[in-house]
């Protein structure tokens, strides 16, 4: 593959790399941010990154099932966002803040 073609001919790899970058950004957000709501947003980012790769694979394999999977993922993501936000509301009610350190009680 010639170097100029990398910019001009868009293929599966481009979408996959985009997906990877977005996924890792989301991961950094989850790992580093303290605000529980922002962490939830970062999770949405990661899910979107996965969706991109699903669609790309579906297209380049001529398989419609990729889109169906995205459909499911979106539903789950919406549900997860709802639960996560409900938890955030709970935390907020209690501590008047949504910092993740209030969840640091996972030690046995």
């Amino acid at each position: 593959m010639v170097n100029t073609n990398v910019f001009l001919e868009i293929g599966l790899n481009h979408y996959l790399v985009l997906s990877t970058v977005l996924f890792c950004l989301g991961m950094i957000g989850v790992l580093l941010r303290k605000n529980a709501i922002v962490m939830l947003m970062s999770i949405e980012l990661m899910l979107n990154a996965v969706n991109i790769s699903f669609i790309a694979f579906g297209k380049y394999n001529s398989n419609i099932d990729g889109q169906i999977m995205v459909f499911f993922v979106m539903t789950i993501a919406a549900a997860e966002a709802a639960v996560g936000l409900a938890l955030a509301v709970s935390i907020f009610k209690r501590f008047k803040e949504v910092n993740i350190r209030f969840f640091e009680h996972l030690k046995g």
Partner: protein
Amino acid sequence: MTADAFLFWFLALSTVAGGVMVVSLTNPIYAALSLAFTMVSVAAVFVTLEAFFVAGVQLIVYAGAVMVLFVMVLMLFDLKHEVESFARGKVTGAIKLLAAGLLAGLLIGAILYSSSGELGSSAPQAAAQIDSTKTLGYRLFTQHIFAFEALGVLLLVIAVGVVALSRSKGGTHGKH
């Protein structure tokens, strides 16, 4: 071709920029707006991949419903600029960044390593899925009907659970 390439690079840039802003902006409202921007960009990416129905759902569900939910919660809390928005600890922070970077590098390496395979070379055949929405609906309601119904049940459970959770008076831990 050039138009397609331009479109991809533009969308990729806006998607990644939106992602970076979500992660880095300290005001949650700005982060939420950046996320909405990213969602729209991703929907556009879906369009370039000829998944029109999914792109529409992305706009309606994500950029619409979910983002509204986020923003509403944020408004409810009335959050100001955060004092402590990033995790403390420089070493662990570095390790976390390093882990994410390594993961990205490894994945990209893996993708490029397998790029000589037949996946990349198969050119998109637009004609084959010209009526993709119809096909999608058909497959969804025949082959995947069980999963679809299960999702419905799941959403019902979630709806009930969320209401119960937000009405409760707090967790199991005492006040700090």
